[in-house]
């Protein structure tokens, strides 16, 4: 079962370093696991812990937070704030009964495409090892025929049927 499990991971990137690292991984045709879906923000400091909880609640099995290396932040020091929030968030997750290892923070400069690709591969395996999150105890919404609400409804119907 664990081997068949393909985790879904949301990745937050900053516009200046880590999103560019992902671009570099692309232009240099590096290969990595297709499980991470990236969101571009201006800075890792923009990451509201709500975003992470929302991703986990909506069906992600893990969240990857990335930003510029300490000292390299385009906004001088905002990645340090991301680092603080990440630590607090991990403690909160543990209290909620969720493995803190599902939320991983890493730094990637605009040149480190290869490093980011490796980190993604490692993190995907880490989350695969943890298994599906299914939080809060509902199946991931099916590919929607129409709206999200309807999709959720369809999923519920399915659950009832099984």
């Amino acid at each position, binding site marked *: 079962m664990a081997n068949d499990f*393909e985790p*879904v991971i*949301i990745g937050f990137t900053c516009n*200046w370093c880590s*999103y*560019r690292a*992902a*671009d570099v*991984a*692309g*232009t240099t*045709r*590096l*290969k*990595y696991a*297709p499980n991470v*879906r*990236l*969101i*571009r*923000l*201006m*800075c890792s*400091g*923009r*990451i*509201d812990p*709500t*975003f992470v909880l*929302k*991703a986990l609640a*909506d*069906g*992600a099995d893990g969240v990857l937070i990335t930003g510029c290396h300490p*000292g*390299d932040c*385009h*906004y*001088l020091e*905002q990645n340090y*704030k991301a680092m603080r*929030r990440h630590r607090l968030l991990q403690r909160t997750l543990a209290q909620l009964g969720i493995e803190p290892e599902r939320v991983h923070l890493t730094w990637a*400069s*605009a*040149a*480190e495409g290869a490093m980011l*690709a490796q980190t993604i591969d490692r993190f995907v395996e880490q989350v695969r090892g943890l298994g599906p999150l299914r939080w809060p105890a509902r199946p*991931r*919404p*099916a*590919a*929607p*025929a*129409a*709206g*999200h*609400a*309807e*999709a959720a409804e369809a999923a519920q119907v*399915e659950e009832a049927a099984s």
Partner: protein
Amino acid sequence: MFDKSEEERIGVYVCHCGTNIAGVVDVGSVTHFAADDLKGRGVVLSREYTFMCSTTGQDLIQKDILEQGLTRVVVAACSPHLHEGTFRTACERAGLNPYLCELASIREHVAWVHTDHAAATAKAKAIVSGAVERVRHNEPLDAIHVPIDAATLVVGGGIAGLQAALEIADAGHEVYMVEREPSLGGHMAQLDKTFPTLDCAACILTPKMAAAGAHPHLHLHTWSEVEKVEGYVGNFTVTIRKRPRYVLEDVCTGCGICIEKCPIVVVDEVHEAGVGFRKSIYTPFTQAVPNIPVIDTETCTYYVKGKGSCRACEKFCPTEPNSIVFDQTEQRITLRVGNIVLATGYDMFDARRIPQYGYGRLQNVFTSLELERMCNAGGPTGGRVTLRDGKTAPRTVGIIHCVGSRDRNYNNYCSAICCMQSLKLAHLVRERTGAEVYNCYIDLRTAFKDYDEFYQRVLDEGVHFIRGKVAEVSDVPRSPDEEGKLFIQVEDTLIGMQRRVPVDMVVLSAGLQPRHDAKQVGQTFGIACSSNGWFIEKHAKLDPISTMTEGVFVAGCAQGPKDIPASVSQGAAAAARVLMRIRQGQLALEPVRASVLAERCSGCRLCNGLCPFNAISFDPVRRVTDINSALCQGCGTCVAACPAGAIQGSAFSNEQVLAQIEGLLLTNLEPEAELA
């Protein structure tokens, strides 16, 4: 949850990018997914096209906006860093606010990095779904226009910086040039001849230096460094640390009597690369600009033995008032500039790092820069090529290419100039001494105009070429008549034999590497270095001049190894960019800014300490927080921190990001398997 699906009409455009995307992602399936499955999310049409960025592709979007009344556009193609501007402009032409267009990167982040077609297609669908959800919450925005200060800062007075500075100053705008050394000129001032034309470096460089020194719009700050950069494009405040010369710049006439009278002679490690000497009070070379000496306090008797000692320079200085000021102190100068050109150059690879080549251990192993200084008529030997004893001319010389370059143990990259530099030195050595010259190379790279012709010429002159990476340079003789020689051990890969070449002199053609403090300088200016340590340009091919920080441009070797023609071209290109900005007078910036909804702000002041740009302040009368949008840089840290949700981040609002998360998760990686 969603309130906008009814009124929004979203068009989705999926690009094949030739086979770049379509080779891995089932573009048709993604297009149908958007049309069918996202119909309920506001998508009214979905199209695929071979090259969306082409005129035809853009026309397609414009036509649909006009005829189908699209209110939002999603283009699934390459990274927004490449074509976001293209598609936003296309939307704007059709009358749609450009910020209502969203790019979904399915090339760099999908097609180019995944091999499993099904998984890649599923991920592309998720990304499109995320972009559709997000774009529904995009707000129409207007770009922020900032005025551009017409003054420019150029950092580095080498050939690239000089070219940039002169072109901007010639156009009539003020340029401040900061140079760390006492004189302009950079590495080029150390060279004798330049390949492939064998122009004398000084002959073509000194007129430019002199022009810079005398230019009414060019203000030199030599012996100085940039300490701090604040502000943003158009409006930088730069603090320069001007080190004391102990010589009054505006009084000194550059007569040189002080240098003549100074009794202290020391080895010049910088300009003469350790093979020549200078005084304690010195200019790096005779044509120095500005022609004003500096005192080296580490060796000057006045500073070493205590005040009152020596003072020869002061005694003989003919100016009134006396130009020598022993107690001069460091100065801080603040400048306001609109644009910055970084042309900070390179460091030579330290050949001592390769012990088997013997530099620093075997007397007659030289670096290319040392030989360059010896060849130079203004250098320590007056242009004579000699062994370390300063007298004997070598009869056989071995030149080793790629020292520290193209080597996994040191630098992976090709330093670009060493082949031609080695060929030039081979020619000069033969011309000056008639010696037999052996060039040991891995590959000869003589691209660019007239370079290969020069190689042919050096071949015709009788220089020997051995294709192979040198294993070792030793001084161990096998017979008494080999005493005093050096031996190059190399596999000649063209004849498949080991060779042991006895020579009198070995020259290591050392490569280029980033400045030792490039990372720190990059941090000062807010730009990053590549894994090799060179400054990263905005786009490797299409924009090798700009950086990711608006208003900061790069030129010359600071961006990567290059020769003089390429440095001059890049310097001129940077100048053209700066002049374009100055001519425009203002620049449109992304309207990514934070603002406070005063009625929601509780005045908790949690956000107040978060802004490194001091854009956030507390209004004690209204008891709410204010954000100064001129200072705000749009990072969004305060938006994330506000417990009341009172801070709005335009272009990256909570609604947009939360919707994108939902959209990304609407589909699964392998829906069939998951549902089974």
